[in-house]
């Protein structure tokens, strides 16, 4: 899979609730093959205060039109600057980067768990699973109803369940508190979100003997395996999140 550096056209930048927004990008060339879990490194041109690129997951891919989407949450200077991109602006990316979520066995009972901006890669993963005839449960956690994103897209690929920390939408509490986890049984769980959440889900999976893949959001210097800044400690020692990950089976991680 060849990586490339390209300035893509911003087709649309749609603000969602609160600090979230979705940027749709178009390449002037044929898109390379891009897998769920992979990410891009976005250059932030509009901000005096950022220096490095910012890693962002593939949210959805439309090969027909050579377009894809990223879903971003404003957490600091870089994402704030990206939120100001307008239709017709361009965004310089290095992509596609990283490994990807693995395909579960046929008929596997599958759960996707996402929190905050960690929900971003799950849509494209859901579509991918669906194309392989797997309809996952999708459990999404948010701070409060102000931040609950429209879930229509997700509902098209699976059965969506919600939690909010304050109970203002869906069940109250963290994703790990959701009643689903008390009832259902899964063969495979995919999870992306804050580290604390991923660790909790990994713990639950371990207890239930469920295979679990997480997508890590480690700080990145380069995104291409050159700086060794993004490491995570695994059973094989320190490996790069950007090339050996961002997706890891939790069995490999020393958490």
């Amino acid at each position, binding site marked *: 899979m060849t990586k490339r550096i390209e300035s893509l056209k911003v087709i649309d930048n749609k603000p969602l609730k609160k600090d979230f927004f979705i940027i749709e990008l178009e390449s002037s060339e044929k898109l390379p093959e891009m897998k769920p879990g992979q990410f891009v490194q976005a250059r932030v041109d509009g901000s005096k205060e950022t220096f490095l690129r910012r890693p962002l997951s593939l949210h959805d891919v439309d090969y027909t039109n050579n377009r894809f989407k990223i879903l971003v949450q404003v957490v600091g200077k870089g994402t704030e600057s990206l939120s100001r991109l307008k239709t017709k602006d361009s965004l310089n990316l290095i992509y596609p980067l990283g490994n990807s979520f693995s395909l579960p066995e046929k008929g596997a009972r599958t759960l996707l768990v996402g929190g905050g901006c960690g929900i971003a890669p799950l849509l494209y993963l859901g579509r991918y699973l669906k194309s392989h005839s797997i309809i996952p449960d999708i459990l999404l956690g948010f701070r409060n109803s102000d931040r609950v994103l429209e879930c229509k897209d997700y509902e098209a690929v699976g059965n969506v369940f919600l939690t909010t920390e304050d109970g203002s939408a869906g069940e109250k509490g963290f994703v790990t508190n959701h009643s689903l986890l008390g009832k259902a049984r899964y063969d495979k769980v995919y999870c992306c979100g804050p580290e604390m959440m991923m660790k909790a889900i990994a713990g639950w999976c371990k207890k239930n003997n469920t295979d679990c893949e997480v997508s890590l959001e480690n700080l990145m*210097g380069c995104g*291409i395996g*050159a*700086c*060794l*800044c993004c*490491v*995570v400690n695994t059973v094989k020692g320190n490996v790069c999140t950007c090339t050996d990950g961002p997706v890891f089976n939790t069995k490999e991680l020393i958490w």
Partner: protein
Amino acid sequence: MVKLGFSIGDLQFKNPVITASGTFGYGSEFDDFLDISRLGGIVVKGTTLEPREGHPYPRMAETASGMLNAVGLQNKGIDYFEKNIYPRLSEYTTNVIVNINGSCIDDYVALTERINRLEKIPAIELNISCPNVKMGGMVFGTNPVSAREVTKAVRRVCLKKLIVKLSPNVTNIVDFARIAEEEGADSISLINTLLGMSVNVRSMKPSLSTITGGLSGPAIKPVALRMVWQVANTVKIPVIGMGGIMNADDAIEFILAGASAIQVGTASFIDPLASVKILEGIESYLVTKGFSDIREITGLINRSK
């Protein structure tokens, strides 16, 4: 055609653009983006005798026009390098230089001897600012006595061209450059990272697991340029300048200040094509200004006094 070559003794470089250690992996990370053999050279990752895991995450923090790193020389050691990386590296038609690191003088000597037998490696870059060393925690590159000892010891065994890479965290960089030259270095490269720090005000904790780390990027360019200028005005051996070079203009500043060649570091993280763009930019600068050989502008600001 403009002449861009330079040489360290009898070792020819086709042009003055080299990638800096620790910022260009082993080259292969960049194969998708550029033809590495176009470059004057590449310096591979800091290598040690034994494998090293490096420091714990977090190892990186962004700063204004720069970044801090605390990678801590993570690498798989010289055995792995020789067996698994060297064969591929030796296919590039450019100078592949190994950056060597040790915890004590014996390590440096042993590493040098290992590299002596790698035919396709024409030069060693001796990194004397490794923060973890035996002798009472004193860093080689900031103590004139140990800087001299390690250079002397490596020079005694080294069959390759020897480039000594200086630490900028010193009162007087010129002292260290002189020592390196006196002890037989063929070239001096500088600067390594400045010791810096960052605190995360949200978590109220240091940003790096090691608290302090190495600052690189455009932020340090003025300091790097000053030191390169001081050193180029002191020693007779070629000086390789680096520190915050992001584009051709930056590179030309170093050359005008006296650097025979430059290294591109952090820039490659943001633009993997940076090194090649810099090469092209230097060439077109020379053409525009009407020069036919880069050596006409090397150290020009010192001549025009």
